[in-house]
């Protein structure tokens, strides 16, 4: 398995390195702030890692695209569905072969690599500016779609990670509210951890292992007040004192405070341990609310979201953004589709279908957001949310984070050693 993932990583690096080979000569669209629907025409392709399931496909093809065609009758959209797990391979091979989809939906942290290689159109030249976007979105979220000072993507939906507490369990242990500091987090986690007579763990006080190890570390890093990279993304900053403290706390949770054992939960678990009471607190994705609604609605009242508070506020966001290919033969049609997909109605429908967080601030008042406490919480706290990514090599190096974090949790390396070794790897990739 490790060999396979190593091969995948190596191949991924090789594929990203090959990106430049197939990129056709850049063509820039003319700046035009207002599209005339009757003048916009052409056949365009859309590559999407959302809408891939049956309900998503129905939503896109039966509801959203007919609305788009109503507005732009001379445009035809060919949709290519994929999943996030394979989006990188799909995009990279498309780019290498020169057949880049006109509109591509991709994740936070992905824009840098593809913009740097010249794959993405500068949306400023297509009439979308940073200032305009910042009127509708939180600044940090707009910046997730920028590279080198230019706008390359418009956010559609966000995936957030934050702390979640099972208040029924906390109340049994004598606590009325979620922790508001690291000290309280440790105290409550210890108080709510349950072990059987032979010492085996029955309930984790604080679960960090149902989430990808990289994302769990990043949430704790942001909570410690740390950053992933320096300001101009030329060097890693996660091995700073804050980073070491964050990873140190995670390792201590396992080895010193013993509030969770390695292997007690995993990202492959059928259900999140917060839903079935195997954990009292944890770091979770906002769609935990949707999962709980499906699996056990009675638990919803007991799920309380909280920002993990250290020196700073720990909340992480990823998400899906819409981009346009730099060599699109129909840039105006592509821009029209991008604007449509990121418009309030279409974005709201897509978010509702996946249980995600709308990026548009105005959607905070929508019924969907108001009915989903986690989404509402996420939107209310987006100003403290931070994202991953930074350098254009992010896609190459992000796979190295989980093994480094796991190495520290297993006690194979000290947090400082694990992060320093990781930083050296990352720096090599940046300098390459």
């Amino acid at each position, binding site marked *: 398995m490790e060999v396979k993932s190593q*091969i*995948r990583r*190596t*191949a991924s690096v*090789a*594929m990203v390195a*090959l990106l430049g080979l*197939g990129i056709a000569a850049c063509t820039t669209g003319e700046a035009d702030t207002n599209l005339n629907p009757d003048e916009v025409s052409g056949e365009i*392709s859309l590559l999407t*890692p959302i809408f*891939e*399931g*049956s309900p998503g*496909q129905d939503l896109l093809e039966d509801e959203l695209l007919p609305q788009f065609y109503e507005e732009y009758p001379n445009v035809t959209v*060919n949709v*290519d*569905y*994929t*999943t*996030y*797990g*394979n989006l990188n*391979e*799909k995009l*990279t*091979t498309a780019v*290498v*072969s*020169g*057949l880049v989809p006109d509109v591509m939906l991709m994740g936070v942290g992905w824009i840098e690599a593809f913009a740097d290689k010249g794959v993405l159109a500068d949306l400023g030249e297509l009439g979308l500016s940073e200032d305009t976007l910042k009127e509708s979105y939180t600044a940090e979220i707009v910046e997730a779609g920028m590279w080198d000072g230019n706008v390359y993507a418009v956010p559609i939906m966000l*995936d957030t990670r934050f702390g979640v507490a099972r208040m029924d369990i906390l109340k049994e242990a004598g606590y009325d509210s979620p922790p508001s500091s690291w000290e309280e987090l440790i105290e409550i986690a210890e108080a709510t951890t349950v072990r059987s007579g032979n010492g085996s763990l029955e309930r984790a006080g604080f679960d960090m292992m149902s989430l990808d190890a990289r994302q769990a570390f990043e949430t704790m890093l942001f909570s410690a007040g740390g950053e992933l990279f320096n300001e101009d993304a030329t060097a890693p900053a996660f091995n700073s004192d804050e980073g070491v403290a964050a990873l140190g706390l995670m390792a201590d949770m396992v080895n010193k405070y013993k509030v969770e054992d390695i292997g007690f939960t995993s990202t492959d678990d*059928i*259900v999140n*341990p917060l*839903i*079935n*009471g*195997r954990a009292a607190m944890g770091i979770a*994705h906002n*769609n935990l609310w*949707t*999962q709980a609604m*499906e*699996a*056990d609605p009675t638990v919803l009242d007991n799920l309380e979201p909280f920002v993990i508070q250290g020196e700073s506020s720990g909340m992480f966001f990823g998400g899906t953004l819409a981009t346009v290919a730099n060599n699109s033969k129909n840039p105006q049609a592509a821009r029209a589709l991008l604007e449509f997909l990121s418009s309030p109605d279409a974005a709201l429908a897509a978010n509702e279908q*996946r*249980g995600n967080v709308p990026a548009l601030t105005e959607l905070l008042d929508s019924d969907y957001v108001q009915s989903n406490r986690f989404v509402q919480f996420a939107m209310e706290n987006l100003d403290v949310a931070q994202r991953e990514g930074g350098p254009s090599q992010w896609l190459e190096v992000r796979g190295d984070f989980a093994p480094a974090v796991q190495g520290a949790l297993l006690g194979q390396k000290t947090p400082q050693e694990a992060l320093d070794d990781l930083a050296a790897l990352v720096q090599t990739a940046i300098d390459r």
Partner: protein
Amino acid sequence: MTLPTIKALAISEEITVVPRKRWFHHAKGRQAALINVALTLGSITMLVPFLWMVLTSLKSPAELAQFPPTFFPQEWMFSNYAATLDAAPFGLYFRNSFVIATTHTFITVVLGSMAGYALARIYFKGREAIFLAFIAMLMIPTYTKIVPQFLLVKFMPLFGGNDILGQGGSGWLDTWWALIIPGGLSASAIFLFRQFYLSLPKDLEEAARIDGLGEFRIFSQIYTPLIKPAIATVGLLTFQESWNNFLWPLLVTTSSDLRVIQVGLAVFQQLDNTQWQYLMAGTTMATVPMVVLFIFAQKYFIQGFTNAGIK
């Protein structure tokens, strides 16, 4: 040791001694029982994940969330299968997978056996070098071949709007050609066939030549009928690999009409949420053809591995 003790031992030996034949039968029976116990345990170990998959496919989301988990469903949700089939055009995906896997198997068995025969039984200059090249090919990881293979497919001359130099169109992308041709024959299949042909006696070939048979008839009428286990082994492995292929069909197709079963199953695995009951129902259905094929071919398949498969 005192005399009475020796006597006592002798007496007890007399009493406890078992006739050799009976002892042999007892020992053989014990050995057989132990082997049966070990095999039963092994079978259970192999069967439990399969059983878990089937049982999971019949549970409700609420039951899947329970802790401790249940083994048998409290409520048998056969409707999960209908919901799975509704989620995507699985009938179409099944058909596509079947066509691709069958074609790959046919190409591999026909051309792979010819290549294996040539490498094993026909002497020609550079034969060893070619064989070494095949061995080297076995060591190249699949992922590193994907981009060059993709480019070959995209720049295929005179297809998909391409000119004679392979420029201007999309080549074989999003066509059956891309799904069938690149995966049609593998170095490992040729290697396996070569090993099987090598294991056959040279006398047959010599007798056939004396009888006036040409090379193709020696291959098709003398040697190949003797390697049925090899054909079953290579055929089954090829079918299985082709049936389970995920990444290549995903990369070279864009239209839903050409998608295969493994790509279809991915719809149940979203970024941070997996619909286990549907995924397991789909996986159970996707497993059926492989199980059926193995049941019919297992006799030859096992022979293939035990007789001359891996030498």
